[in-house]
Structure formats: structure tokens, C-alpha cells
């Protein structure tokens, strides 16, 4: 990469610093991208990766942020423009024209009130002086180029009529409308399902190849970065800890933090401790059916969220439930914990049907199934001390029968590796990983037989996720717990599960022993899911 970037550098950033108030968030970052090249910027939350790039391109819109250092753009005209010291007017001439942007969340990045044509042609009219008609023709070409089916009729569509992946394709069309020399992609696939992610990655690579665009790709996911980038910049707390060519960085990381990140990321091929194959069946779900009435602004309709799904879990085993968004995997969790009423089916837990009990008996049964949610911030009542949150189920069920409640709370905190004095803290005083440990402690308070983990580690940074997964595995072997492990990340599911259920559109596509699903999938959909996972080894570009 180094030779070509020296020849035709598009963006060169030197000693970039961003400070808000007295706090320096980006501390002297250097990088450059050449024509046709891709720089991957990777880091965990709070590493300043988005802020660095937005500051370097003059799109940072944080009140009170002070940007220093230089960032020079060399577009086709050849003349360098210093972006950090450019006037707003100069920047406007560059944005959308020489630099295109794609952001994370395709559901909010498009204006809901404007047609796709309008949103694509805007920058063409602004920068290229095109008329409405020529801009429309160009917009049609772009929609075709980004692979929107039936582009002619889609021109007059509105964003809400597209799927998430299609919206992100439109965002790419907007970003590339004026053939910019450079594309900034800020976590462009994070909000997408894994199969869609793979398609978007391919699309960007293809377009980049055709046009010679320089790309800066920001992601928290080393797997994605490995697929797209020639060079990687690893950021930690606003500082670059490592900046090397992708393959060599991943094969021989030189900085301890990079090594840690690489080790912590979920990769396929890890399996859990084996469980006793002859263990009794704890939970048997049969023909589960769930339908929701959904109110839209224009009326009501019914969505079949779970459609006659059956499965069994043995004591001490983990059943992994995988699927993309809308597959119905979380609905199963909500039914089993009583949050959602099913339309039909049974769920036998030690001889009682979980779905048919009411009142006192139901409350007793509730003790035997516990759940840990995804969001570590929202899962705890911010006005209750940690100890009270953990102790709430004890109080409700008048436990423990012997011994003191505070002893039990201390015991639970120790169980999840938290110091016992955390009991008197409030959730906002804890980090995300610590909060999730509190949620786990609370779930264990009633000594449940089955613990449902619904994307319980999905919101955590990879290094934290790895530790929480280790904790869960340890708790399972120590306490003999049975897990229902719901996740979209197949690598994490393989690492945790003995058996796997693959869901799609409310139906069970495939289920069986984990090794069979991962090594010898029978269904096309399962094969597609597995194929879409970014491989551990970076693609040699």
C-alpha cells in the first residue's frame, strides 16, 4: 500500500487533536489514504474513531469542540485543501462533492418526507449544477449501480418503503453521486444483519474498484475491517496504538492492545465444555405459536412472530437460538418468561406447562426461569441501588428462607466477580460490563433452572463481551445451569451452545447438535448465514 499512497494521496491527516472543554478526546492521530485504497479504523466505544474522521473531514458538529492539527485533501484538481482550517463555504464545496459519507443507522439517515430521487439528486444539483431532469437520469444510474431492484419505480419511493439493507444501498448511492475522490463509511454495516452486511461490503468494494475511490472505513468489528481494509489504524482512548498493513497486523500484532482485541473477538471454531448427553430434558417447547397485532399510523395488521416452533433443552446444556432481526428469536424468550401471551403450544418445565399456569402457582414457576436482557443501561432501575435491584426478586418471593437477605446479595455479587461493596452503588456508577454482571446476579437470585440470555452480550465491547461469556460458562459448570442463548452472532453462539436452533421469519429452519449445524448444515439458509460471517483471516487484497 505504501508505494501507491505516496503516489496519489487523497487525504493526509497529521497530528489531529480534538478537545471538548479541557478533555482531549482525540490525541494526535496521523493517517493517510491513497486513491483506490482503504484505511480501516478500529476501536472500542469511546476510542474516538468517529470523532477523528469527522474532525478530519470538517463534518464534526459537536458544540465546543476544538480541532487542531492538519488534514489535507487532494482531490482530482490536485490542489491541496486544508480541511481543518477551511471556511464553512469551502467545506460545503467539498462535502458530497469530493467526500461522500455513509453513516451507521440507515433507518434515520434518510429523510422520511423526501423521495429517493430528491435525496440523491440534491447533491448533483448543488455541486454539478445539473437540472432536475439530468439529475434524475443520474439518480437512476446510481440506484442501478448500488443494486436496488426495479430502480425506475424506486426513484419515486420513500425511505419507509425500503428494507434496512436497501436504505444503506441508497445511502451509498447518495455518497457516491458526485463521484467523490473519497468515501467515509462510519460503521455502515453495524445496524445490519450479517447476510446484508456481507452484501454491502461486496458492493462498496466493487464500486471502489470501478471508481478508484479512497475509503476510510470505521468499525468496531475487526472481522469486517479484515475484509475491507488494506491498512488498519487501531485507536484506543483517542490515540493510535498500531497502524499497519492489514494482513501483517492481524497475523503479528505488535501492540498488546491489538493482541487483546484480536483474542477477544468472537471467531468460529470455539466450542463449549461438553455436557452430559444423557441428562434429563428440563424444558420442552412444542408447537409454539405467537401472533402480534401491530398498529401502524394507517391501521392494524397481524404479524406471525413465531410459527409452530418446537425444541427441547437438557439440564446443563445450552441451546443457542440464532436468527436475523425479525426472526422471532426474542419472542420465544418473551413467551417463556410470561411477557407475551402465545396463541398456542406448550412449554413443559419439569412436568408443568409454563404457558398455562396462573396466579400463585405461576409466580412459583416464574422463579425457575430467569432472563438477562441485552441493554446493560436500561435493564437496571437507575433510581435503585445495585443491592436493591439484586434483592428485589428475593423480597418478592420472601427469600431466603434462612439466613439474611444482605448475605445472599453479597454471595450473588461474589458469584459474578463483583466486589461486595457494589451493593450500595447506583447503576450510573458502574461500567457496561459491570452492569451486565449485576443483571446476571439478579437473574441468579432465585436459583433458576433455566436462564434465558437474550443478546445479553451484544451491546458490549468485544473485550468485555469475552469476559462476560467466560463468566457465563463458568457459572453454568459450577451451578449446573441450563441456558437458552439467543444471539445474532454465530461465532458467539458456537462458543456457548451444545445445541442450535436456526430461526427465520418465525419458523425453525434447522435444529440439531451444534457441531452438526456448524460443520454440516443441511439448509441453504444456515449455509448462507455461515458464509456471511467475515472469516478470521483477513482477505488478502
Amino acid at each position: 500500500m505504501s508505494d501507491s499512497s505516496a503516489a496519489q494521496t487523497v487525504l493526509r491527516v497529521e497530528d489531529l487533536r480534538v478537545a471538548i472543554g479541557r478533555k482531549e478526546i482525540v490525541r494526535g492521530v496521523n493517517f493517510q489514504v491513497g486513491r483506490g485504497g482503504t484505511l480501516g479504523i478500529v476501536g472500542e466505544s469511546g476510542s474516538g474513531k468517529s470523532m477523528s474522521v469527522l474532525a478530519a473531514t470538517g463534518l464534526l458538529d459537536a458544540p465546543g469542540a476544538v480541532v487542531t492539527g492538519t488534514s489535507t485533501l487532494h482531490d482530482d484538481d490536485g490542489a491541496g485543501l486544508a480541511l481543518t482550517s477551511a471556511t464553512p463555504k469551502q467545506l460545503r464545496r467539498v462535502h458530497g462533492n469530493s467526500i461522500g459519507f455513509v453513516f451507521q443507522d440507515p433507518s434515520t439517515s434518510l429523510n422520511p418526507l423526501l423521495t429517493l430521487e430528491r435525496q440523491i439528486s440534491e447533491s448533483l444539483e448543488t455541486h454539478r449544477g445539473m437540472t432536475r431532469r439530468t439529475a434524475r437520469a443520474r439518480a437512476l444510474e446510481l440506484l442501478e449501480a448500488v443494486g436496488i431492484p426495479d430502480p425506475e419505480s424506486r426513484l419515486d419511493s420513500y425511505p419507509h418503503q425500503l428494507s434496512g439493507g436497501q436504505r444503506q444501498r441508497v445511502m451509498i448511492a447518495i455518497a457516491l453521486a458526485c463521484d467523490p475522490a473519497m468515501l467515509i463509511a462510519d460503521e455502515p454495516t453495524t445496524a445490519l444483519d450479517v447476510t446484508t452486511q456481507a452484501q454491502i461490503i461486496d458492493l462498496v468494494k466493487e464500486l471502489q474498484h470501478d471508481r478508484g475511490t479512497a475509503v476510510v472505513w470505521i468499525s468496531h468489528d475487526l472481522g469486517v475491517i479484515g475484509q475491507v481494509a488494506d491498512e488498519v489504524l487501531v485507536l484506543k482512548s483517542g490515540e493510535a496504538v498500531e497502524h499497519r498493513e492489514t494482513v501483517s497486523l492481524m497475523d503479528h500484532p505488535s501492540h498488546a492492545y491489538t493482541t487483546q482485541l484480536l483474542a477477544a473477538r468472537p471467531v468460529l471454531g470455539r466450542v463449549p465444555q461438553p455436557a452430559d448427553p444423557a441428562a434429563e430434558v428440563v424444558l420442552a417447547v412444542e408447537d409454539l405459536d405467537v401472533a402480534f397485532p401491530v398498529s401502524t399510523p394507517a391501521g392494524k395488521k397481524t404479524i406471525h412472530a413465531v410459527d409452530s416452533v418446537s425444541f427441547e433443552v437438557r439440564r446443563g446444556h445450552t441451546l443457542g437460538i440464532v436468527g436475523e432481526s425479525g426472526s422471532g428469536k426474542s419472542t420465544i424468550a418473551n413467551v417463556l418468561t410470561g411477557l407475551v401471551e402465545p396463541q398456542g403450544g406448550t412449554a413443559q418445565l419439569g412436568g408443568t406447562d409454563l404457558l398455562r399456569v396462573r396466579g400463585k402457582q405461576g409466580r412459583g414457576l416464574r422463579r425457575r426461569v430467569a432472563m438477562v436482557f441485552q441493554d446493560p443501561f436500561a435493564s437496571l432501575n437507575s433510581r435503585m441501588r445495585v443491592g436493591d435491584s439484586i434483592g428485589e426478586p428475593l423480597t418478592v418471593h420472601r427469600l431466603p428462607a434462612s439466613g439474611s437477605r444482605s448475605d445472599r446479595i453479597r454471595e450473588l455479587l461474589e458469584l459474578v466477580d463483583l466486589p461486595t461493596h457494589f451493593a450500595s452503588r447506583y447503576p450510573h456508577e458502574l461500567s457496561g460490563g459491570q452492569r451486565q454482571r449485576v443483571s446476571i446476579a439478579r437473574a441468579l437470585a432465585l436459583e433458576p433452572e433455566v436462564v434465558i440470555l437474550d443478546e445479553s452480550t451484544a451491546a458490549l465491547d468485544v473485550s468485555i463481551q469475552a469476559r462476560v461469556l467466560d463468566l457465563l460458562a463458568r457459572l453454568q459448570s459450577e451451578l449446573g445451569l441450563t441456558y437458552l442463548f439467543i444471539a445474532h452472532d454465530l461465532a458467539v453462539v458456537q462458543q456457548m451452545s451444545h445445541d442450535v436452533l436456526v430461526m427465520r421469519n418465525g419458523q425453525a429452519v434447522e435444529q440439531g447438535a451444534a457441531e452438526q449445524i456448524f460443520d454440516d448444515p443441511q439448509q441453504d439458509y444456515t449455509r448462507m448465514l455461515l458464509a456471511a460471517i467475515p472469516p478470521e483471516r483477513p482477505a488478502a487484497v
Partner: protein
Amino acid sequence: MQLSPKAVARFLGTRLLHSAIVLLGVMIVVFALIQLVPGDPVRLALGTRYTQESYDALRAASGLDRPLWEQFFTYIGSAVTGDLGVSFRSGQPVTALLLERLPATLSLAGVGLLIGLLIAVPAGIWAALREGRIADGIVRITSQFGVSIPDFWMGMLLILVFATGLGWLPSSGYIPFSESPGGWLRQVTLPAVTVGTVAGAILTRYVRAATLDVANMGYVRTAKSKGLAPSTVTIRHIMRNALVPVLTIAGIQLATILSGVIVVEVVFAWPGLGRLVFDSVASRDYPMIQGAVLLIAVMFLLVNLIVDVLYALVDPRIRLA
């Protein structure tokens, strides 16, 4: 503009049904008004000097001698056909008296709302785009002043300065637009400014909040990333999207504005519905109070229904769902 008639029909059908239910509730409340009067409303209305014949006549005319359920259905039935009974005081049909007063109130409320929007939309957007800066602080404090000022006091101060003091404008009275547009304008200015200032202060706060919400949306960042001129970003991407919640709020706030109109009509001796209600309460003319309350509530529901239609037209998520 593409239209999915089915989606729009479904949306408007739901809203229409909702309005109809609320209207029924409104009628029940209005009907209950007269039933809740402790004692005999007819006797209260007639005062101390009346003959048995006039008492019986009024009682029969107002239907108060019949059973409650019959009265209710009669009331609903005649209200729907536009018959709101006869005034205790003048003996004339309530509907005719109301319609006579309606133009005065509509012109005051209309001009007042217009002034309010002319203040609120620019001020609210301007403040939101300068959030946290001095301009924003000034708009926020000024709008608090406007919200806190009693409208009748403001009317009195305007009269003190512009009518009795400077003598520029009349302090009271109403001239129909059809008679003399110039005269109408002179008459309507002070009361409409009073109504409009308070309405403008209330609406400014909502416009500011709605604009702030929209200005922080991802698509505004996308618009900026396209290098569009700030005016294009503001008008095409921020204002259009902020318009939707502002419309809804403006419809709901109409009730507050109509509250102001009632008092302001009294201050400026404006012969509108507010003044009519005020006089009727003083003379305990219950059919008149019922009629005026019903008419004002119906106006409110009607405006909100129009807001819903506009909403459906502005927002493709409803138009094309």
C-alpha cells in the same frame, strides 16, 4: 404525488371515528351541564318575577319537563340537525344567535393565530438553530414572558398605550369585514395582537422543541454531508419535518387560544362567542351556554380533523403505508 387512497382512507376513517366518539362525549357533557344545575334552571333563569304561565311555557319549550333519557335523545337529535333550542333570555333560537356572533370570533381567532404563527415559526426555528447561545436564551426568556402575561392585562395595557394614550386605534367595538375592510382592520388590530402575542409565545416553545428534535436527526447530518447550503438544510430537511409535530400541537393549542379569545372579547367589547358566553353565564341563560360551549368544542374538533388531513398529506408514511 403518489397516493394510496386505501391507506389514506383507513387513516382518515380512524381519525373520523375517533372525532365522532369525542363529539358524542362532548355532547354528553354539554347536555349534563343543565342537569347538574342545583335547583330548577328555568326558575333560576327567570329570576324572582315571573308568572306560572311564562314558567310553564319556558319549561315546555326547553323540554325540561320530560324524562331525562328522552331529553337526551331529543337533545342529540336536534343538535345534529342544528337545532340548539331557544335562549332563555331572548326567546330566540340559539343557533341563529350563535351564527350571528361567529364571524367576529373567527376573525379574531384567525388573525390572532396568524400573528402567533408569524411570531412562533421564525423565532422558534431561529432559537433552535442557535441552541444554547445568547439568541436562544433571549427567545426562551421572551417566550416565557409571553406565556406568563395575563392576556386581559396585556389587552388593557395595549388600550392604555395605543387607544387612550396615543389615540391611534380604537379600544373597543367591531366592524364586519364586509362593511369596511379598513374599519375591520383598525378594530381587529389590538385584540388580535393580544391573542397573537400569547399564542405566539406558547407556539414558539413548541416550534423550538420540534426543530431541535429534527435538527439532531441522522438525516440532517446526511443533508449536511452532501454539502448543501445551510438554507436548503434548514428549509428542506429541518422545517418540513418539524412542521408535522408543530401542526399537531397548533391544533391542540387552539383550545388555549380560544380560552384567550373569550377574555379578550370581554376586554375589547368584541361581540363574539366569548362575550356571548360571558353574558349568558351572568344571566344564567343555560341553552345559550350549552350551545356556545358545543359550538366552540366542535370548532376545536373540526380544526384537529383538518390537521389530521394535512398530516396525512405531508407524511408519506401515512399516505403510502
